[in-house]
């Protein structure tokens, strides 16, 4: 394709300076405001010792349940723990950590998070919505939501991280919604991430999607990526027999792309979902169960990471 000439013009196109050639500041202050937002976020998160994201890429693998149990388990060991529900459209962390209906305090420094009975500071979209079963809606023009909605959700997540008075936390857990794009957006938003836990299951389809998330994180130079295989097996509550749920082999580091280590294998236990859904994380409600023991091992490993030891 050649240059587009205005109709009737045959002379050579005039040269207009490009954006990059113009250094003059227009006074619109857009860039300054974006930089200020980034600085405010970085300043807030500088008080947090470790930032840990729990993601997958795939939905329905138990990210939120693992996040809730990890949070409760770490808090029970005396760590100062915060948990942000980055799933704005399908929030569940508030319910799982039993803070539904909590009031958020507008303080001088920002918004105080809700405090769970297990001692975890929590922020979730669920807390802001008037109706529990209402879908998230924005004040929007009649059309074009596909253009600005992603930007809006990223902005709100930035506020969940940067405008909440987290205080001096040992660890802030971020429950990331399904979709590899959500992981990418979070990584772009955060000044840094200490650990990305990717939740998978023994399903081939899930592993296929999680492989994409691993590659994305590796390309984004995330230093610490750990895999957590949920529903790894089923333990019979009567006889203790262990069986596989999906007919695939247990995850090994080889078929989970070598460089990524396996941080946890959680057996399927219907109580994990049932109790956690009721706001009573299994790890503290039924600490002797096989799933709780496995979750506790994950808590131990993350504890070492928080303390700065070799994980």
């Amino acid at each position, binding site marked *: 394709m050649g240059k587009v000439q205005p109709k009737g013009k045959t002379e050579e196109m005039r040269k207009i300076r490009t954006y990059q050639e113009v250094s003059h500041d227009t006074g619109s202050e857009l860039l300054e405001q974006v930089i200020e937002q980034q600085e405010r976020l970085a300043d807030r998160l500088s008080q947090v010792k470790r930032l840990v994201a729990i993601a997958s890429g795939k939905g329905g693998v138990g990210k939120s349940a693992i996040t809730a149990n990890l949070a409760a388990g770490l808090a029970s060991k005396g760590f100062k723990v915060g948990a942000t529900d980055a799933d704005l459209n399908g929030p569940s962390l508030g319910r799982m950590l039993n803070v539904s209906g909590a009031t958020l305090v507008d303080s001088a420094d920002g918004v105080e998070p809700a405090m769970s009975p297990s001692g975890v500071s929590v922020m979730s979209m669920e807390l802001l919505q008037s109706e529990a079963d209402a879908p998230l809606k924005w004040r929007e023009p009649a059309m074009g939501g596909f253009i600005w909605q992603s930007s809006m959700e990223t*902005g709100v997540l930035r506020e969940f991280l940067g405008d909440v008075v987290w205080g001096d936390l040992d660890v802030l857990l971020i429950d990331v919604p399904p979709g590899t794009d959500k992981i990418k957006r979070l990584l772009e938003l955060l000044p840094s991430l200490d650990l990305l836990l990717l939740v998978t299951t023994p399903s081939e389809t899930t592993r296929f999607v999680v492989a994409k998330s691993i590659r994305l994180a590796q390309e984004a130079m995330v230093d610490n990526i750990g895999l957590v295989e949920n529903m790894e097996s089923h333990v019979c509550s009567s006889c203790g027999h262990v069986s596989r749920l999906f007919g695939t082999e247990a995850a090994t580091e080889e078929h989970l792309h070598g460089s990524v280590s396996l941080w946890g294998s959680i057996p399927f236990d219907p109580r994990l979902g049932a109790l956690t859904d009721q706001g009573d994380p299994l790890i503290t409600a039924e600490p002797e169960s096989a799933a709780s023991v496995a979750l506790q091992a994950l808590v131990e490993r993350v504890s070492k990471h928080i303390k700065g030891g070799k994980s």
Partner: protein
Amino acid sequence: MKFLCIPCDSVMDFAERQIPGDGTLAAVFKCGSCSQEVAMLTNPMETQLVSSMGVKIGGREVPAQPMELSRTSMEGGKEDVFDQSEVVSTDSQSHSLRVTWTSEAVGRLDNVPSFVRGMVKRIYTDWAQQNGISEMNPAIMDRARIELGLEDM
């Protein structure tokens, strides 16, 4: 985004912003050399795209408030989610002046949706402190509103 005055080969400066209230926006830019002005008019979708970034063309009259984007952009927000009893100015440590609110001013604030009330109260309190005003009443609120250009609050 920049506007170039082609005859002068000069970048135009931001001059004015107007929000008519129908979801559109007008931003005026002026050439520093020839004083030519142009208005950038955005449709509701384009206006929303800028708003979704949590920024304002031409800058802010008041600092960004905690969770401002969430509070001002969500529909169906819970009325009583924010407890504003602890709302003080953003900069309370560097200001010794305490601002008291008359019952009329508090009454007017009650007309503001609870979801954004704490944010609005803080903006007024900050402004009063910066201007050495110790009592907030409806007349002072009107003055602050004009000076701060609180078009969308």
